[in-house]
């Protein structure tokens, strides 16, 4: 009997240039980890930060 839980569900084949989701996150995460502390500092100036939203 097939398990219909999300763990077993076969999604459609992604059409990404990345081989899998791990490769995708490997491209994103290091920069985030290295700069989160800097983001912490810039939070202090959040009110004046360059806002894309124009707030």
């Amino acid at each position, binding site marked *: 009997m097939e398990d219909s839980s999300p763990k077993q569900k076969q*999604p*459609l084949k992604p059409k990404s240039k990345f081989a899998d989701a791990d490769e995708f996150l490997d491209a994103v995460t290091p*920069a985030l980890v290295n700069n*989160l502390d800097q983001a912490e500092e810039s939070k202090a100036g959040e009110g004046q930060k*360059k*806002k*894309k939203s124009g707030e």
Partner: protein
Amino acid sequence: MHISCKVRPLIRTFLFITFLFLIGCSVTPDQQTGPGISSAETFHVPRRNDPLTPEQEKVRQQVTTAVEADIIVYLGNYIEMMTEKRDQDGHVVKPGTRDLMSAMRQGPLVISADDMRSLFPQYAASPASRSIHSQSVHEAVTAMAAELYRRALLIDDPRGNNTVLFTAGGVSSGKTTAINTIDEVHRAAMAAQIIYDGTMRNYESAHRRVMMAMDAGKLVGVVYVFTPIEKSAPWLVDRAVKTGRVVQANFAGRSHWQAQHTFLQLVNDFDGNPAISFRLIDKSGEKAELVPPATMKAKLYSDDGRFKDFEAFIAYTKKLIRTELEKARADGRLIPETEAAFKAEE
């Protein structure tokens, strides 16, 4: 077959009119924000029944009516706002695009209900109005974010990524600030076609959004930034003081508590599936560090022994926020509207 000279011009005219009609149909306002609902369909903003003051309720109705009447225009406004470039003084130096495909050619489409709020002048006019009307526009921006996400998933990424990045973690964890303000992070985030900026507080919603992305053939990444509530609370109050954007203690605490459980549940749900991956960034120490997703278990507020239950954690969050508000008041930085918005839940 012989067609008389009298009939030929009529046929030519008919074909010409048909041609013009077909061209007219193919250039609808809907194209400006990509595929999805047509202008003939109605868009509905679900009612959440949050308790609102009469003033807030009035704005809620105005905003809901406006969005339901013209969702395409509002999504276009949002895409334009998110793609325009501004200088240090906030002046637009390069106009944005209203077209979803053009936006995705430039970089990731960031879907942020928080940023959507500023489309509404009733909310964005001043720090005071932001404090008062954050709740008033909540229903509309939540529905808009969901609709934009649905439409964005229909698009094959022109940059070939076909990826969705979900940010997760309690409010005021620093994740959005990093993506918005730091060039290196911004460049790395170009690997995403869509960035869904949120907390992933609600498991059902998070699971549904992940499944939608996978069903659309996208690779999915979930990055959770764990910032302890003690570190988060001062940022949350500081932002409210500076911008008027208030996140009440109840919601803030709930986001920190529930997002942890949602994250762990999703890690378990999709274990072994190469189309989705998870990262946990721990900001509890001096420096942010990448740790295995499963270590979230050791960080659960529900299990760390300090709080007997969820209500105790919310009470603790309220206390932290109250302390920060008192400091801001003592410094003369707190406007009455912001303080009132924090106190409205008590």
